[in-house]
């Protein structure tokens, strides 16, 4: 590497720059992406890599659906099927859902609060590289003696029994446990970063209650992430120790308790559900007002119900465990708390509808996806309420009814919102609009495919089809539902293909976006598209919620919208050149530090103490060099 020249070679009369490696300089071009600390570039990296994993998880889902198209399917072996459903779930939760939300958060939080970057730019990049390293690590199991095959939930003692005792062959659970611990490190750092950014870096006048609802939801998500990941990290480390070092955390006959794992896992796992869905709720809370030309109905109630969901989300974990024999007291308590959480969720849905009601609705792609979100999430929410009916849940849990439920929440909810977000913010990120006609095809195909895939699962589940089975017998009445679901899965795949066509097609020939193509309400629309490196030429001063909107419009006595006379030619959009703005400098060390983790990971999985040595050296080098490197290079 040419860049490793020692700083000591600098002539003595110039004060040597601190830091061990020469500071990377490039801010554009291929190599800049490896060392950037720009929150926008990091957001794009998160989004791009998460989309790659989304395609991988989609292919896994298609294979699963092909296998289940008819009874006694033979396309996959039992072992392959078990690996695929494990990896589909793990990928969608940890490598798609969370990073996509982080992608939106990374790109948008500073723009929406009027900041030039996040609080800890290098930590931000570290989070991304840990995500990339962790994802690659888990998937490397496919080539290195066993991909994860114990389910995304990894219940003990199935996963914690040592490999030599045959519960699960191969290194699958080892890769899974170590990989998730790694990903947890990335999630916690990005969560802490978001909390610090949102609490400290808001523009003057941006009080908490003036913050965009998306930022609010990401704040709740960041807190949930920071507090939830330690629970699962502890559990995963215990699994790894039981498996590799003969500890007895979950060994029943040695006094351990397999059920302990489930408590730890779901104490993380249920907040995790809200970590995944709250960003979606934030996104539609931004798009619905814009495309209805009305403010968010009951804005503060939407925010507070999001916070309420964040708190209540800690008190419902055992509803994943109603069949484990908790006893009627715990069943009652967690059944009731589960009902309770439906109330703030319902309030949100009604407030979104109140926003749309009486508006002037432009049915562009972002709006269609947002309306689709309301409809599909409502179905998922209602089937969720039926799970709080504990006796009924003992029939539903571990059947396809649950598969239907959480796909309505996470696909119908999160994925629909994310796609709406893609169409909405694409022009701000890339400077060109996605094609709206193709976007509508994308939406309708996804809506139809999604409902074909998952609606029939409600029925086959109630008719007794258990989950996680690589085959089901004929003559059980499940054939039709499963066949329709398989066709639907391919319709979803087609809709994703249409999206990719849209991306490729508009990349060169798409309509060039103005600064404010949607007549937006929040600060990101007050700067040019694509957002300049320095975000705001001038840090804005905020006077109200939806500040940018109020620079454009006011209300008459009847409460109707009145356009303010344009102040000159600029419609309130900034046109500075960013001269003299000092931004954080790129750095190698987030990447180097993150690379130390998978080396240690392989050392742990394969029990190779010598491999831990380079791992530790890389880690220590990364930490030390990062520590003495200034945040911004002196120039």
């Amino acid at each position, binding site marked *: 590497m040419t860049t490793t020249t020692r700083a000591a070679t600098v002539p003595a009369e110039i004060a040597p720059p601190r830091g061990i490696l020469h500071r990377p300089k490039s801010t554009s071009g291929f190599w800049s992406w490896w060392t950037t600390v720009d929150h926008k570039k990091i957001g794009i990296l998160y989004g791009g890599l998460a989309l790659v994993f989304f395609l991988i998880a989609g292919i896994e889902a298609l294979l699963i659906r092909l296998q289940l198209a008819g009874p006694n399917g033979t396309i996959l*072996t*039992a072992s392959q099927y078990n690996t695929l459903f494990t990896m589909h779930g793990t990928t969608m939760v940890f490598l798609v859902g969370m990073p996509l939300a982080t992608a939106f958060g990374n790109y948008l939080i500073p723009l929406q609060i009027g900041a030039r970057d996040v609080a800890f730019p290098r930590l931000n990049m570290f989070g991304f590289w840990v995500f990339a390293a962790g994802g690659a690590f888990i998937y490397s199991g496919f080539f290195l003696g066993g991909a994860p095959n114990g389910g995304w939930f990894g219940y003990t*003692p*199935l996963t914690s029994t040592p490999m030599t005792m045959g*519960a699960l*062959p191969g290194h699958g659970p080892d890769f899974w446990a170590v990989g998730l611990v790694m990903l947890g490190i990335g999630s916690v750092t990005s969560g802490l970063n978001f909390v610090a950014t949102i609490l400290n870096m808001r523009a003057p006048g941006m009080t908490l209650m003036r913050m965009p609802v998306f930022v609010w939801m990401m704040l709740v998500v960041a807190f949930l992430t920071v507090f939830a990941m330690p629970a699962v990290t502890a559990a995963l480390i215990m699994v790894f120790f039981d498996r590799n070092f003969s500890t007895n955390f979950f060994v029943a006959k040695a006094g351990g308790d*397999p059920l302990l794992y489930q408590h730890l896992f779901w104490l993380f796992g249920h907040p995790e559900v809200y970590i995944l869905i709250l960003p979606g709720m934030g996104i539609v809370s931004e798009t619905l007002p814009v495309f*209805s030309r*009305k*403010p968010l*109905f*009951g*804005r503060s109630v939407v925010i507070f119900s999001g916070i309420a969901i964040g708190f209540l989300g800690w008190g419902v974990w055992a509803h994943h465990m109603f*069949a*484990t*024999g908790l006893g*009627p007291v715990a*069943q009652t308590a967690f*059944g009731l708390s589960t009902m309770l959480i439906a*109330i703030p969720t*319902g*309030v949100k*849905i009604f407030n979104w*509808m*109140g926003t749309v*009601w009486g508006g*002037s609705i*432009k*049915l562009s792609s972002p709006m269609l996806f947002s309306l689709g979100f309301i409809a599909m999430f*409502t179905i998922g929410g*209602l089937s969720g309420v*039926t799970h709080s009916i*504990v*006796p*009924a849940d*003992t*029939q*539903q849990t*571990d059947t396809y009814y649950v598969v239907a439920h959480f796909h309505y929440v996470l696909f119908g909810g999160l994925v629909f919102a994310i796609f709406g977000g893609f169409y909405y913010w694409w022009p701000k990120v890339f400077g060109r609009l996605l094609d709206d*006609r*193709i976007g509508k*095809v994308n939406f*309708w195909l996804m809506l139809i495919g999604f*409902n074909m895939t998952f*609606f*029939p699962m409600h*029925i086959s589940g*109630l*008719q*007794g089809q*258990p*989950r996680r*089975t*690589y085959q089901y017998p004929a003559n*059980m*009445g*499940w054939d039709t539902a499963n066949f*329709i679901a398989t066709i639907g899965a391919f319709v979803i795949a087609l809709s994703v293909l249409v999206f990719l066509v849209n991306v490729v*097609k508009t990349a060169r020939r798409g309509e060039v976006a103005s600064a404010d193509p949607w007549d937006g309400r929040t600060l990101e629309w007050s700067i040019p598209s694509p957002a300049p490196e320095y975000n705001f030429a001038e840090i804005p001063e905020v006077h109200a919620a939806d500040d940018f909107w109020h620079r454009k419009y006011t209300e008459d006595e009847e409460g*109707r919208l009145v356009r303010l006379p344009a102040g000159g030619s600029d419609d309130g959009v900034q046109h500075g050149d960013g001269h003299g703005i000092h931004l954080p400098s790129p750095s190698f060390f987030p990447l180097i530090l993150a690379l130390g983790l998978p080396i240690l990971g392989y050392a742990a999985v394969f029990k190779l103490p010598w491999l831990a040595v380079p791992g530790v050296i890389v880690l220590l080098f990364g930490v030390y060099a990062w520590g003495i490197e200034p945040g911004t290079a002196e120039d």
Partner: protein
Amino acid sequence: MAGDGFGGAGLRTGARGDDGMIHPKKRIAAPALAAGVAILLAACGNSNKQNSLDPKGPNAQKIDDLFIPILGVAIVIGILILGATVFMAIKFRQRDGKPDNPKQVHGHTALEIGWTIVPALILAVVAVPTVSTIWDLAERPVGPNVLKVDVVGKQWWWQFQFPKQHLVPASTQAAYSATVAKGMVTTSTELHIPVGTKVDVALHSYDVIHSFWVPELNGKKDVMPARSNHLTLEASKPGVFMGACAEYCGLSHANMRFRVIAEPMADWVKWRDKVSGGPAQPYSGEIATLTGKTYGCTNCHVFNDPKQQPYGPNLTHLADRSTFAGGTLELDSANLKRWIMNAPGEVPMQSKDCRLPPPATCVGMPSFIKNTPHGQKTMTSEDADKIVTFLMGEK
């Protein structure tokens, strides 16, 4: 343009522009509903005996009675919200593509309080029967007329043991003493219970977590190592009810099925007396050598004592059962022969090393014709026939 092609093919009927996009939702709703109804109807006409919507005993009935009305309310609420969403999208859309200047409503306190309180009230109403049913179903039956069964979930089959107990229906006093004298009975894959009798099922596991589920008789209950969960089964009428393991338990989780056979008390007593008696045939001579020294079947199985609980299924009175291999295969000579010679070819198992001495990794039944370890005999077709003939005679 690609978009037009897709749109014209599947989504739009008219030649109108983008604003004609509002109607498809209606056209989708109708076929979707029709498809849903069709699936439900199709379900009624098949032989599914694992249907939680078709309760056949008081416990499952209680769950169904609780769930169906709430499901109905949920469906009504769902249709209202979905309908309102579609309605709004149509009613308030920008007709000529030009933005309107709608009234800027920031909120409405009364409305918002309303849609917080009303769902809370609905849920409060739902909570009452839910909680009472939770406690109702949690009650363990006691008394002389309760049949006790110990169920052991194993990778990947179910073992049923009837312990010594006092099931004393007045009409079968004599039979009762006979059973106690004989002690317990251990069977697998098929659980016989008397109709109208509460069965107290105690659930045990010594490997991983399983879940015991007979949807038409009750909800599911996990089978946990380190603790004994209980579940009450009761069938109102004679019949066969399918069950399955409902917790992912490793490679062949899908092949861990069973059935509950409910029969009138008199028939059940007859069954019990038959299967708790000694073996139907003498177990000695060539067959004992074949299953013992030659192929090592007795490492995991027992052929001549219904009381024992070996590692694998107890094969005494095997021919009394109609299915085997985790409930996945009909019990007939052809299936049994294929199974005995090459079980992993029928059901995936981690049994490659089962014929090696410990501590070999072994879950399931090994193949006796593939991967035969050095020094051990590969099973011949003639030997397999002899074992099959013996087992099929073990009624």
